[in-house]
């Protein structure tokens, strides 16, 4: 117990002058904004070296003690926590300074997904933003991010989101009209834009007609549209099925100019149907008289 006490007292005796010396020999601001001019006051006399050390930046200056050492704007510009050391021939004095991100946004890192999606999808478009200052420091103070989605006819959705730790997130519905939408994120005067392609969704329904053509039946769909009225793109596959006497015949046909056409064997009493994806069209029972 006594030894512990002696050890503690000895430690305090050795450490105390250093603690006092920190205040006496070097006075650094507790925090500064990135890139701002600042000064560090030193006391005493003689030559010394001043170091400002952090993982993101290091500075070294030869100084005369007893003077205020000025740092020009832009000198210490990377946000972070720095150790300030004043080293003389015989001693080392330390202080600490926090460099905070500048408040003015200069750059947005905008992650928007996806780049292409069907129309009318709830929360189908997501955007995340990180806000940086002119020195590429993440601005951690809350800032308002305005997300805006606009389609070619000018209809927009706007969400305003506060950043937390420099990041903000939103989700938006894809619009009802196909085309290239502009998805923007704005903080103050800083804007970042992404283009989101909105393509027609699945067909809303399939309406098929049949007519005889010699020994065959000609099947043809009406122009396919999604539930928002957009034309389903050419190349979308429509599957025609003929069921007759327990056997099935199928034909996969791509849309051309919005419609699908095929010729199938004409069997009296055959059931004919068409489908695309999860959408099933009308059925026709083929009867010859």
């Amino acid at each position, binding site marked *: 117990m006594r030894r512990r006490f002696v050890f503690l007292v000895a430690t305090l005796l050795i450490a105390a002058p250093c603690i006092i010396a920190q205040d006496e020999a070097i006075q650094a601001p507790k925090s500064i904004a990135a890139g701002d001019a600042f000064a560090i006051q030193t006391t005493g006399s003689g030559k010394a070296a001043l*170091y400002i*050390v952090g*993982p*993101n930046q290091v500075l070294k200056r030869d100084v005369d003690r007893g003077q205020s050492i000025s740092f020009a704007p832009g000198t210490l510009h990377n946000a972070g926590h720095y150790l300030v050391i004043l080293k003389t021939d015989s001693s080392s004095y*330390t202080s600490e300074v926090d460099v905070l991100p500048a408040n003015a946004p200069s750059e947005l890192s905008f992650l928007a997904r996806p780049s292409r999606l069907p129309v009318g999808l709830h929360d189908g478009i997501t955007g995340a933003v*990180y806000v940086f200052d002119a020195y590429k420091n*993440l601005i951690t103070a809350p800032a308002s991010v305005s997300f805006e989605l606009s389609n070619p006819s000018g209809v927009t959705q706007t969400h305003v989101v506060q950043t937390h730790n420099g990041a903000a997130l939103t989700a938006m519905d894809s619009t009802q009209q196909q085309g290239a939408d502009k998805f923007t994120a704005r903080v103050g005067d800083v804007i970042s834009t992404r283009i989101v392609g909105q393509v027609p969704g699945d067909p809303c329904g399939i309406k098929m007609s049949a007519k005889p053509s010699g020994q065959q039946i000609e099947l043809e769909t009406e122009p396919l549209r999604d539930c928002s009225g957009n034309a389903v793109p050419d190349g979308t596959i429509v599957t025609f099925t003929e069921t007759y006497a327990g056997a099935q015949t199928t034909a996969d046909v791509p849309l051309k100019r919005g419609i699908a056409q095929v010729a199938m064997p004409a069997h009296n009493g055959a059931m004919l149907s068409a489908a695309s994806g999860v959408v099933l069209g009308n059925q026709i029972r083929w009867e010859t008289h």
Partner: protein
Amino acid sequence: MLKLLKRLLPALPILAFATSSHAATSADVRIEPSAAQNGPHMLTEHTASAVIQDYLQSWKSLSAALEENRADLLNMDFSGAAREKLGETIHEQAAAGLSTQYRDSAHDIQIVFSSPEGLSIQLTDTVAYDLQVLDHGKSISSQHITTRYIVVLTPAEARWKVRVFQATN
């Protein structure tokens, strides 16, 4: 006073040993529950674990790179602005004849943000480390520092890389 120093002297090598052996061991790591559960992208346990593992590895790379003044050691774990800034620091250190030793001893990590489809993950880390500064190989200061970092990681080919590495208080 002399008596006191005589009693204290035997303890010094033990203290020095304790410091160096602590530096050689892995840091204490505490993981807080993720605060990023409300976003549209729910992190899997596997992803969170991989992110934290790669982040902790980045401290080893940072430590080695700043100690040896070798920017190439950053390439595996850092990209973007974080890589640029650390690389500049190494350049500044080398020009001034400095090197720094960062020995992380404790991390308190929380994932705070995850962007859609896992394009980026943000975490905070209250990290305790010892920083020793050397000028032309001679130690000029050694400090124990505790500070909070904000870190953004993005996926690369085979691992998560640190893109933003910023102490904030």
